[in-house]
């Protein structure tokens, strides 16, 4: 079984990491500038609507992490390579982080805008909650399973979970009776004001790139852990 060579370096000391971090930091700074100084307050909700830009970005980052998790899981079961298992581990952990942020920021936004932090009549809240439970299960399984068996177990659960994501998203949309609380701004061709639109896409890109950067770093750290365990055995 061929294994790629595992770099024995601190990921924080590589040049590529420095460049990527600076770029992501600059992107986020620009997004924050747009969110706080360029776009106006939304007319019915006021300032709290500005959470929207990073809230939706976190949701995109969560889905990107779920996709990486699927690639890592399938890849690991097919090729049995450590770096694919590390990708799965990294994606599940970062997915849990961003999914938690989506839920918490969404609840805060809901509480201030509609005086309702959570509702089971709202499909997207329910599907995000299910996805969050899945990420929790994956991270917990990684913690509780033996080191040798965890990769295959997590890959199996990761694939099952990734299969369930679209099913959950589509099925909960039909829960009866649906009273749509969640704004469907983008699907309904909203964000007509140009500054809203620009800020929306810049902020989304910034948060997703931050998520991918985290996955990359965590992936490198996981590989270092494997190497360190090898040396200690």
């Amino acid at each position, binding site marked *: 079984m061929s294994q790629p060579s595992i770099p024995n370096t601190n990921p924080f000391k590589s040049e590529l990491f420095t460049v990527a971090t600076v770029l992501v930091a600059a992107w986020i700074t620009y997004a924050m500038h747009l969110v706080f100084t360029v776009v106006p307050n939304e007319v019915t909700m006021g300032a709290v609507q500005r959470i929207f830009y990073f809230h939706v970005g976190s949701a995109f980052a969560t889905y990107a992490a779920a996709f990486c998790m699927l690639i890592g899981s399938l890849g690991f079961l097919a090729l049995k390579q450590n770096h694919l298992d590390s990708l799965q581990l990294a994606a599940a952990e970062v997915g849990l982080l961003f999914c938690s942020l989506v839920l918490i920021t969404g609840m805060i936004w809901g509480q201030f805008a509609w005086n309702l932090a959570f509702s089971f009549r709202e499909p997207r809240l329910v599907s995000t909650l299910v996805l969050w439970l899945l990420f929790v299960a994956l991270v917990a399984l990684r913690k509780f399973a033996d080191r040798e068996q965890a990769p295959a177990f997590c890959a*199996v659960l990761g694939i099952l979970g990734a299969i369930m994501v679209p099913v959950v998203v589509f099925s909960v949309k039909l829960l009866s009776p649906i009273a749509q609380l969640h704004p469907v701004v983008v699907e309904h061709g909203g964000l007509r004001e140009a500054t809203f639109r620009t800020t929306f896409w810049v902020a989304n890109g910034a948060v997703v790139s931050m998520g991918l950067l985290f996955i990359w770093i965590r992936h490198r750290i996981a590989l270092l852990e494997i190497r360190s365990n090898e040396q200690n055995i």
Partner: protein
Amino acid sequence: MFNDKLRVCWRLFRKDLVIEARRGELLAMIVIATIGLSVILSYGAWLAGLSENQRILLAPALSLSVLLITALSVIGKFSEYDEQSGALEGLLMADVPSEALYLSRVAAIWVITFVAALVASLILPTLLGLPQVAALFTVSGIACVAGISLGLASTGALLASVTARVRVGGIFLLTLVLPLIIPLFFAGCEVLSGQESGHDFWWTVIWGLDAIYLAAGLWLHPYVLVNRTALPL
């Protein structure tokens, strides 16, 4: 070839049921836990002073949650018996096909869960003062309970092989299966709540999900079983 696998599967299924019938531990544990939980939950519903209509709407969700909690906390034990007694090791050494192992386990868990589900669907509505709404008394109710038990059994059988070798053991099954089973739970509540609209859709969700779980279980079960030794790093 196919007939051979089916024969092996049938023998394993019979063995599991005969052992369970002699011991009677799992079914007894599920039923006792079901009664205990039903008492607490129905007491809460009476305490809240809910009207008969509200209790009718609440009954399916409560019955299914009792089933989920009790069944998932017990079926993990099934695989632990095999793991600890060395029976699984023997079956693997005898080259028993993984599909036969998986399907026989699903069938055995399905039977036990289905019986427990029928008990849960009778006890809780009775304690809520509504024995007439028990799923046991209608064909569609029984079919719905059978569908949900099959989903529980197919994900439970796969992931119980995982939890049998995880430090925290069978109780961890609830954490792993819950995010996967929630859409099935929603569909079951919709069907059992007796609202006519969208019934066909929810039936499709129940049996469609069962098919997905079974197919995914058959595909992924070998990975959970075969990986019993450490991967070369």
